[in-house]
């Protein structure tokens, strides 16, 4: 079930400071860090679960709950903020029916806010998985989401 963790543990357990990259790689494979995974990592690294959980809850990058198929990141950088990122975010929340930081119950969308995507020239900007959408207005949100809903429906 937890494929690859043993191999990754083998790679990292002896490296000082290996916990963070290990968590990163495991999450890359599994999408999120379940309790079972953290327990396995703790015993494999010979450190306590508390320490692993402490690190995993500290960094934004780590997710302890399952993630949606489409990860929507709304940039809340300063440039985006002054150009109306909050309105875009609210529109997203309304459209998806979830609060920022959460995932839709059908595991289709996860809505995150990020500090800065580094594309300030395109503000306000969001990414959906690897796709970037710049100069967005709240009005464009429903259509955009609909596109992905349809895509998800087709695949399933």
């Amino acid at each position: 079930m937890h494929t690859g963790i043993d191999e990754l543990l083998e790679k990292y357990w002896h490296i000082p400071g290996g916990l963070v990259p290990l968590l990163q790689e495991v999450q890359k494979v599994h999408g999120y860090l379940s309790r079972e995974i953290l327990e396995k990592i703790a015993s494999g690294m010979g450190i306590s679960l508390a320490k692993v959980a402490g690190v995993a809850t500290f960094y934004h990058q780590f997710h302890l709950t399952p993630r949606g198929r489409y990860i929507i990141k709304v940039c809340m950088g300063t440039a985006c903020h002054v150009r109306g990122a909050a309105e875009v975010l609210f529109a997203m929340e309304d459209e998806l029916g979830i609060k920022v930081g959460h995932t839709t119950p059908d595991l289709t969308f996860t809505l995150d806010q990020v500090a800065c995507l580094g594309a300030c020239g395109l503000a306000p900007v969001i990414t959906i998985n690897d796709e970037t959408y710049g100069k967005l207005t709240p009005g464009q949100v429903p259509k955009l989401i609909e596109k992905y809903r349809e895509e998800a429906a087709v695949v399933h």
Partner: protein
Amino acid sequence: MCVVEVKGARKLMAACATPVSDGMEVLTESDRVINARREILRLLIANHDLRCLTCERNGDCRLQDYCYRYKVEDTPYKGEVIEYPIDTNNPFFIRDYSKCIRCGKCVTVCAEINGAYVYDFMHRGFETKVTSAYDDTLQETTCTFCGMCVNVCPVAALVEKSTLWAGRPWEIKKVTTTCPYCGVGCQLKLKVKDNRIIGVAADRSGPNLGDLCSKGQFGWDYVHSPDRLTDPLVKRNGKFIKVSWDEALNYVAARFKDILNEWGGRAFAGLSSAKCTNEENYLFQKFMRSILQTNNIDHCARL
């Protein structure tokens, strides 16, 4: 709270972490320092369950002590106060994180002294919490219930169950004594109220330097066990019958004398106790040797 003013430094320094250097001029109670401490206290109590009226640590609380010392009566910051559910799942102490000030002492003692690594800082920012992974009950963790986290907690975030509603801190007498369990000889303070032990506090004077294990910290309640022997017992027709001290001792003395007269000292043997005091052991061997005329004395030294 440990901020001090160092002359020439741009900002206040943490006294606990700043190495002293030659010629350093340190002000520990300057106006600037006092104002900073007051402000920090106001911030702490702004996110603290302030139901001090019935708090177990009322009167024995570092947060209260400092608020009093620096005359912080109230906080101007009325905002979000995070309330956490109280964990009462383990037999010995409760965890009430609405009273936690996130000092991290429990993390340190658990990791650096005990080595159980049960606690750590979780999350970050305002939501930072000092707890076990996933807020697990302690039975689900590597906790050994040494209780040292309870003893270092400066507030009422970790409180022994046995002291709950058992008495106000100022009514509790603390008696330093020696732990009755293993041979390390830890010093501890028995908390006593109304002639009952209600808990144990750390004592730094002994070989344990204030540290304890589960037995020393929580293993004292046998003292109040209903199974305790209360009266001398004499077996008659295979059944124990309560008798008076006089009756019991007279009977024992008479039998001892009879056997001594009939068989001499060699017919006696005595086991003294590695759990009794030196004074008692001394008297016991003196009794066996000088009165019962035997050197057949031993105890479970070898067990």
